[in-house]
């Protein structure tokens, strides 16, 4: 059997991942393979990654082999989901709890962004120096 076409774009915290997904009126259904493309596995115990599992609600685990709804996955991971069914695209953002936890640790979140010449610079490359991080905009 050939693999179904990967014609749905999931923006996983900004990173575009092409997956095959069943789009219905009531939402989006992800195949186990699509779940794996996001770094998770559907196991009898629930949604797992690196030995840790988020348990599925009672009764749902039997349905695991044939996939999971995107709404359900976002809710289990406590992550915001923005959906555009017509364009077959969705954005799975970062949870407020994750962001707040990282900020409260006081460890400055690392990032790497391009300059005007497309060269990437990371915050962590400045370790050992005091850093003034300033966000501004032309608007």
């Amino acid at each position, binding site marked *: 059997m050939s693999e179904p076409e990967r014609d749905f774009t999931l923006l996983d915290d900004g990173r575009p991942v092409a997956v095959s997904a069943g789009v219905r009126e009531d939402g989006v259904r992800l195949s186990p393979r699509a779940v794996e493309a996001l770094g998770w596995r559907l196991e009898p115990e629930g949604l797992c990654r690196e030995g840790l599992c988020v348990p599925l609600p009672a009764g749902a685990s039997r349905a695991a082999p044939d996939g999971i709804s995107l709404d359900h996955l976002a809710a289990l991971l406590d992550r915001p989901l923005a959906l555009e069914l017509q364009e077959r695209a969705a954005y799975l953002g970062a949870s407020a709890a994750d962001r707040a936890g990282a900020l*409260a640790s006081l*460890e*400055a979140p690392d990032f790497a962004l391009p300059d*005007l010449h497309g060269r990437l610079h990371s915050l962590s490359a400045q370790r050992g*120096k005091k850093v003034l991080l300033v*966000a*501004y905009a032309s608007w």
Partner: protein
Amino acid sequence: MAIAVALDRSAEDARPWIEAAKPTHPSLIDVEHRVADLYNMVNVPTAVWIDEEGRIVRPNDVAFGTDTFRHITGIEAARHLGLLRAWVRGEAPVMGAREVRQLQAMPSPEDQQARAEFGLGRWLAERGRAAAAERHFVRAGELAPHDFTIRRGTMPIRGIDPMGPGFRAMLQEWVGAGKAYYRPLPD
């Protein structure tokens, strides 16, 4: 070391400012608002101090480099610059961890939902899906009305002048409701 991050639609929007300033420090372009998401920034200019060990020692604060807009903002550049100089020279003690945490604004689930809507809208706009993008930008603004990196920052993408009547109406409504457009840290 300063790291400047432009929360702009494109490198081209930021280019004239960077070329005029000729910075010797990294001057980066953040079209996806990655830094705004990671640091829960909701307006510009926003500054964060990070020490040699990579720890946040002063959370998000309003920091103007000059007094160009002081007549509008009421915020003196000297306030932040003076504190910054003292920190860099080691002349003043930095905030303790407890104080930093007390002054940090944490994102709510609605704020993160707004950022997801923004991220999807931006991606759609990049692909020429303007009508679909607009729905998500509007939704993002409704979810996080205090987030001007979204409400004003999306204006150039949507063909709205970010200095024009659309912005002035938004600002008037916000300030008229007794809310602050800039929220500096307390002295």
